[in-house]
């Protein structure tokens, strides 16, 4: 793989995405059949630097690294460097001094992995930077779609919710479009990014119309605590207009795939019936998350074993 770091799906080629997916399915098969996976990270250290609370993504990366034989070190720092009187460069140098082989970074400010990437000479995996990107989430979503639909190209995918503040939405838009899917977004106009249509997506304000003919519906976690007053009046009203419920899905395709990056606000962006229903693949996403992260870590550490496995 020619990329030294994984900072965003905007910077990946279709071939690179295909490579990750191919390896992910191979790993999945190995694990299912109880076959050994390559110990690419044996003797290597992965630092997981998390400036934001995260259980799911962090443990997923940790498990992925351990399955590949790596050592992991979790460093959590809440709040920004600035609040601690430390610069991002100081943070980067501290990490470098520990001599890791790879850094997984979760940070509340967009672009922070880019700053670190300019200073560090090890691969960095962006595990979410502000509202910007969360590339491994998009890759695991793609894997899940591929798994259940058998393809990505030509599918109609709808992303619903707070698109403006969603790194998951951005990473998915770039990745899905590169793989040939048709992407639409739907949310309150106050929560759509400016000029989002220029990303080549269809924009909807009305959920009932938006779900029609869709093969996949991804709904996003809405974080009311992060919103400014004026972005959404109340949970109830949000749920009324943008919550995915059985009644909304009446106009959708019968085999529509329901996805959510988690954790779910039950009864807000998605009703419990839909979240736990037969069309929901939310738990499959979690399982695939570990596998996709294994593939990413494997490819980024550029081990010699790579050739034999592809």
């Amino acid at each position, binding site marked *: 793989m020619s990329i030294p770091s994984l900072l965003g799906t*905007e910077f990946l080629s279709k071939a690179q995405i295909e490579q990750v997916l191919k390896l992910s399915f191979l790993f999945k098969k190995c694990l299912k059949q109880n076959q050994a996976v390559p110990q690419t990270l044996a003797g290597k250290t992965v630092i997981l630097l998390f400036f934001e609370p995260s259980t799911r993504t962090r443990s997923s990366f940790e498990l992925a690294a351990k399955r590949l034989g790596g050592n992991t070190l979790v460093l959590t720092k809440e709040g*920004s*460097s*600035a*609040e601690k009187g430390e*610069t*991002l*460069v100081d943070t980067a140098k501290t990490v470098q001094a520990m001599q890791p082989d790879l850094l997984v970074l979760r*940070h*509340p*400010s*967009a*672009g*922070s992995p*880019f*700053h670190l990437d300019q200073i560090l000479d090890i691969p960095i995996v962006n595990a979410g*930077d*502000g*509202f*910007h*990107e969360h590339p491994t989430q998009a890759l695991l979503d793609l894997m899940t779609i591929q798994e259940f639909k058998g393809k990505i190209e030509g599918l109609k995918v709808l992303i619903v919710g707070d698109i*403006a503040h969603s*790194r998951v939405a*951005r990473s998915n838009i770039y990745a899905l479009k590169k793989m040939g899917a048709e992407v639409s977004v739907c949310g309150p106009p106050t929560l759509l*990014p*400016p*000029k*989002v249509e*220029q*990303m080549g997506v269809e924009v909807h304000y009305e959920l009932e119309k938006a779900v029609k003919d869709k093969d996949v519906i991804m709904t996003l976690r809405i974080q009311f605590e992060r919103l*400014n007053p004026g972005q959404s009046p109340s949970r109830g009203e949000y749920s009324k207009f943008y919550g995915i419920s059985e009644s909304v899905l009446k106009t959708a395709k019968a085999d529509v795939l329901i996805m959510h990056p988690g954790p779910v606000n039950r009864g807000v962006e998605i009703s419990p019936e839909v979240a736990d229903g037969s069309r929901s693949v939310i738990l499959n996403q979690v399982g695939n998350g570990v596998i996709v992260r294994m593939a990413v870590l494997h490819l980024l550490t550029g081990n010699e074993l790579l050739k034999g496995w592809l």
Partner: protein
Amino acid sequence: MNGELVIRKARIFDPSQNLDVVGDILIQKGKIEALGTQINVPLGKNIPEIDAQGWLATPGWIDIHTHLREPGQTHKENIRTGTEAAAAGGFTSIACMANTKPVNDSSFITTYIQQKVASESSINVYPIGAITKGLDGQELAEIGSMWEAGIVAISDDGKTVMNSYLMRKALDYSKRFNLAVVCHAEDTNLKGRGVMNEGFNSARFGLRGIPKASEEIIVARDILLTELTGARLHVAHVSTAGSVALIREAKRRGIQITAEVTPHHLTLTDEVVGTYDTNTKVAPPLREPQDVEAVTEALADGTIDALASDHAPHSVEDKEVEYDHAEFGMVGLETAFPLYYRVALQKGVSLKRIVSAMTHKPAEIIGIPKGTLKIGADADITIFDPDMKYRINKNDFRSKSKNTPFDGWDVQGKVRYTIVAGKIVYQEIPGGNR
């Protein structure tokens, strides 16, 4: 001796008197004594000479928008380093904004700055006073006392006076002193926690946007209040096509309004924010290509009167942080001219317009008797080599701060001499000054 100088064979370029001739300038007692060809120096005097063949001599450049950070934030800049940077950038006069710590909202601080300038600076520095006490937007500052002490304009620059009533009163009150009211146009609520221009690129980069309307609403409001009061408004750092249209229309209606544009709003778009280099974070933010085009056109046709650097030094600690948390602003005094000159060379804005916007136009805005090479005027002169090409290196800056997005740019046009009242305050030494 100081104040006596002959400049030989320069291309004397002075838009204030429509002058563009090759000749000599004789300076005596700090004033322009004579302009002409092959001027003879008075008998019995041994006056130093500058051979300026191939170079342009213009009235000393004036920058009406700088932040010198003294008092209060001298780790970023102080009056000595800021004025040295100005001299190296070819500026003989600068105006410094009021957002120091404490704020320049009283004659006491104005006098403090002037005393510091008298002992630390070799160029002219004109303080701008605050509109409101502490820049809090609540009460008018003692504008009259500051005027007596020597301020040349009033501004809460860095902040917008959001209370329209108070802004109206400031405009009214300013008429007594004939001071321009300089508006920093950003609606605080619309700006919110935005860090870059709102648009497709802010969506791409995942950063909070600042809509153009946040600037245009205040420009429109202040135009209406200026019309209401009959005062004199100067719009700082115009960044959008919409603001340009409002200013053009206001001028057409005869409202007393002037405007300035910065080097960065003439040369950069919000695309560069994609590097997440915090040196691209500035208020108002870098906009889109159509805005750059509009401000360039407005500079060319005179809708925008003046060029101003908005020199805003920040330390490494303020900038080597997350984009969201970095301070707004970039240094500009030492990169302004080659960027203006680039606009002349690449965008076809006439050299006359560029030099006007750096000399007599800003002088008129702040009401100082500068910006001309007329006989008897103060001998403030900038001499530059229009052909010299070089690469911007932030480590060469005299400014204490290096927060520039222009490091490494290849530019053309270099200051050779900066002369204040006949005294050489900066000289470019071939092979580097440091």
